[in-house]
């Protein structure tokens, strides 16, 4: 850790955090929040959390910003001023925030030292993960092996949470029948929306490479930062890029709503299915070592590595479908007729 770099990044982070909540325009707030996420990403790389940084870059800075744009497009970028009780609410919020801060500052005395090797978090299971991952699973990226193998249950339900979030967005926004679609104000026009040849051409040429990169991230997650979550989000982002540069309908032509929901299901099902397969082969749920019985030419250690790849693929499919689904629903206000 280089503390000078840390200081610079942290200062910028705080400035961005202040700016994003103070600025009087939602579009600007979204952009500053994107910058905030990228700075976070730098901070995490600097602290050695490369997988977290990768996820933040693709999710926080990429997809979150686009979701904010989509929401602003369908609503308004105006930020009004509270008419009455303005000072009261501000004072209340300030007192609450300061009290929370005070409690945390008092608690800070008991926190483990920053950068300490002997923090409680690094003493119990963590040394086992670090020393045994290569021996147990032949996967050098510990984050992947902990994510997909040692704590596979946890990740399975995280994937289920993503899936549920996708379903919730559909349940809240989607309007199927004509009469349900109460009259909406016209979407807020961010740009004139004329077909820009250069942007379209560049986007069209970029999309295959982005998708190839996403597949690489999924497949190479065992040896480098990356994995199912990051790869899935990048795959989804490639479709969102198409939607933004062309039209929302282009993406619907490739990935229809039916396919999206189906792929979300299939992704979670692949994950759970591999778990049940292990159960059928006589091992515990998500204990991939038993997969060596059915996989050709693999010992128990490699079977765990391959099992992880299987569930990472499931995660990638589910995350991709859900990210696209959330974007399409928000940007078209659940009507799937027009959008960014």
């Amino acid at each position, binding site marked *: 850790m280089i503390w000078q770099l840390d200081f610079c990044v942290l200062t910028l982070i705080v400035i961005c955090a202040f700016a994003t909540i103070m600025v009087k325009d939602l579009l600007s707030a979204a952009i500053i929040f994107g910058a905030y996420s990228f700075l976070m990403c730098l901070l995490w790389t600097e602290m050695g*959390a*490369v997988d977290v940084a990768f996820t933040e870059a693709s999710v926080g800075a990429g997809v979150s910003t686009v979701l904010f744009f989509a929401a602003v497009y369908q*609503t308004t970028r105006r930020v009004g001023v*509270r008419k009455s009780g303005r000072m009261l609410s501000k004072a209340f919020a300030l007192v609450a925030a300061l009290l929370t801060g005070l409690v945390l500052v008092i608690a800070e005395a008991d926190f483990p030292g*920053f950068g300490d090797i002997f923090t409680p978090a690094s003493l119990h299971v963590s040394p086992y993960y670090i020393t045994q991952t290569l021996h147990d699973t032949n996967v050098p990226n*510990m984050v992947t092996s902990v994510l997909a193998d040692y704590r596979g249950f946890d990740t399975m339900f995280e994937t289920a949470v993503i899936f549920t*979030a996708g379903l*919730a967005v559909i349940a809240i926004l989607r309007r199927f029948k004509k009469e349900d679609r109460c009259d909406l104000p016209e979407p807020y026009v961010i740009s004139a929306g004329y077909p820009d040849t250069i942007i379209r051409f560049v986007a069209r040429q970029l999309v295959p490479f982005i998708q190839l990169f996403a597949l690489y991230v999924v497949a190479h997650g065992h040896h480098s930062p990356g994995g199912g979550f990051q790869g899935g989000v990048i795959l989804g982002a490639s479709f969102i890029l198409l939607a933004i540069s062309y039209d929302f309908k282009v993406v619907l032509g490739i990935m229809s709503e039916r396919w999206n929901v189906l792929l979300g299901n299939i992704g979670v099902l692949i994950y759970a299915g591999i778990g049940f397969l292990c159960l059928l082969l006589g091992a515990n749920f998500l204990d991939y070592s038993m997969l060596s019985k059915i996989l050709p030419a693999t010992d128990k250690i490699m079977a765990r590595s391959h099992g992880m790849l299987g569930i990472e693929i499931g995660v990638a499919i589910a995350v991709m479908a859900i990210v696209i689904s959330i974007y399409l629903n928000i940007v078209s206000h659940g009507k799937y007729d027009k959008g960014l």
Partner: protein
Amino acid sequence: MHALIADYNYWIYILLMMIGLYAMLAKNNLVKKVIGMSIFQTAIIVFYVSIGAKEHASIPIIAHGSGHGAVEAAIDVAHYANPLPHVLMLTAIVVSVGTLGVALAICLGIHRRYNSLEEDEIQEQLQ
């Protein structure tokens, strides 16, 4: 003074948490509240990752030669950052985009009904 500098990550995490909480409570605009929530989430992620950080440690990927089982050297625990908080926070970030999507969907639903994202204007229409 030394404690102040040594634990700067914790101070920033507390500050970010306060900013997020303040935005969630004080801001009139619903999307601003959602941004506040996201800042709050990242504050907690900063805290977790800071706990996992180790002085002079490398990234949690074991350097290895080519080929199957090429690593023989003993692995020093102090040499690698703690992977456990990284895993927990990685999934937390992905879940945060899910919660963000749901939150924005609710904002859109509110806007569809009340044609406003301002808290006080919605309150007025509700009464």
